[in-house]
């Protein structure tokens, strides 16, 4: 057994196959048995469902091929849903990116006590997972009509935010709630990039006469912005696909794509499974596109980090 293992370890040492089993034969190695559960899983629960939905999107109620569902995506209710979803996602991603970057810069380069950095990173790890129903409850308790902040502002400062037009169960309410996991996600992902801004670059720039602003303009921002863009993309996709928080907070009041799809799945709200599938595929295309941007940008910045 040992010599056979040694032989196969030798042939599979990364790089192109020069000797060893042919491509097809590789699929039938005994070791593949260990990977089989993974592959079955990937196929059954990731690929097949998605492909099936993709085909359903092009199928009408009788089972024939059609473009009608895609055209049906042009319905005002659906276009509006996409519009609101995109706007919420862009807004929460942009604000999340800016604030997350600011906080990351503060804890890494702001000469704050070392302990703060690890505390923030740990908290971010937790907070980025705190999305969903409990988060909605937390914000209702904070900014709802009887929320602590609402009451404090009313009693201490005489300022009634609801009278002034604010409503938690609205576009901005949801955006502010989404920030609770967008900002930590930004911090977690952008921290390595900010770490990568070497202290020596700062010093070299200073010795060459650059002011702080000039450092950021010529070196800091150019080095960081690809990562910021990539992460922004990720935050966008994250927000676009979120449903639980929105459902618990705004229910069906806010017409966003995920809520629309949710209602469709629950009770065929669109009266058309094909249209629902088209809706879902539309979602996947948007989130895939955003993720591709992230991956491409990530690969490019790796090149610099030598």
């Amino acid at each position, binding site marked *: 057994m040992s010599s056979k293992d040694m032989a196969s370890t030798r042939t599979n040492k990364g790089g192109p196959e020069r000797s060893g089993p042919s491509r097809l034969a590789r699929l039938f190695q005994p070791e593949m048995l260990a990977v089989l*559960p*993974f592959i079955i899983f990937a196929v059954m629960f*990731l690929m097949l469902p*998605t492909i099936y939905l993709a085909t359903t999107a092009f199928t009408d109620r009788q089972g024939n091929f059609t473009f009608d569902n895609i055209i049906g995506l042009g319905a005002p209710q659906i276009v509006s849903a996409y519009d609101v979803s995109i706007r919420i996602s862009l807004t929460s991603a942009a604000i999340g990116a800016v604030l997350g970057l600011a906080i990351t810069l*503060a804890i890494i380069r702001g*000469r704050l006590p070392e302990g703060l950095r690890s505390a923030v990173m740990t908290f971010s790890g937790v907070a980025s997972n705190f999305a*969903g129903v409990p988060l909605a409850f937390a914000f209702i308790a904070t900014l709802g009509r009887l929320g602590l902040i609402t009451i404090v502002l009313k009693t201490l400062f005489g300022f009634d935010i609801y009278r002034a037009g604010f409503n938690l169960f609205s576009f901005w309410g949801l955006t502010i709630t989404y920030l*609770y996991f967008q900002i930590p996600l930004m911090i977690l992902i952008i921290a390595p990039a900010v770490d990568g801004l070497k202290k020596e670059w700062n010093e070299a720039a200073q010795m060459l006469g650059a002011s702080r602003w000039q450092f950021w303009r010529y070196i800091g921002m150019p080095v960081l912005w690809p990562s910021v863009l990539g992460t922004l993309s990720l935050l966008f996709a994250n927000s676009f696909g979120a449903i639980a928080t929105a459902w618990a907070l705004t229910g069906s009041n806010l017409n966003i794509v995920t809520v629309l799809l*949710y209602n469709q799945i629950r009770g065929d709200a669109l009266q058309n499974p094909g249209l629902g599938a088209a809706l879902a595929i539309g979602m996947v295309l948007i989130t*895939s596109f955003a993720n591709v941007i992230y991956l491409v940008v990530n690969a490019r910045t790796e090149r610099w980090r030598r």
Partner: protein
Amino acid sequence: MTRPNRFWAWLVFIVGAAYFIVPLVATFEFSLRMRRGVHSFDAYASVFADPRFHETFGYSVMIGVFTIILGIVVVVPAVYYVRLRLPWLKPFMEFVTLLPLIIPALVLVYGYIRLYNSSSLIPFTSSAIGTDILLTCAYVTLALPYMYRAVDTGMRTIDIRTLTQAAQLMDASTLTIIARAVFPNIIVAILSGAFLTFAIVIGEFTIASLLNRPAFGPYLVGIGTNRAYEPAALAIIAFIITWGAMGMIQLLARFAPRTAARTD
């Protein structure tokens, strides 16, 4: 460059900290307001007295445990063998574990419902047990990226390839290698992945509600629509559980075994 830096940094930090801490404080305060005029733990008492709380929480915990076990069975052997014998499969694995992050859970569950309903080849949804299995598999899929990354990093850190070759040189059988050399060293990584999976499963709402299972997530939403103060108490409880799970991961990170040399 020194003085102005620290002022702005502190300002940003304090504002940020406020944004994150205030909701927690507010939620806790809200949860104490059940008894008129006085702060009390009545809401918590109400929650713990609710039989449906125990039912759904117990159900989610059970599903969580099965998810973890299934996740380990699916991920660990695959990662091990890909690292050791089948490196050409790595890009495939990386792609697959990226998919759950790209395809929203909502879309996946829609696919499952249409694909595995009563009239299909594999009718998961035609029975309660079948749907439970489907739910578990869905959760394994959701947790796949995190489980994979935890186990993969764990195996990379302890240089599984050298470990295996050293054991082979001592003429150990494959089973012995896995049981004695590999498993003890990656148990910490697996536990990390397990805690993350647990955190994901406990709070999950979308899939559980669409598959109509009596899980904790849908229970939370139900409480939210009917009660006023209990939701806040539940949010605090959920937050403590998430903290607990993450905290365990941090703790485990300290006990993670490490070897000096890394082959990749």
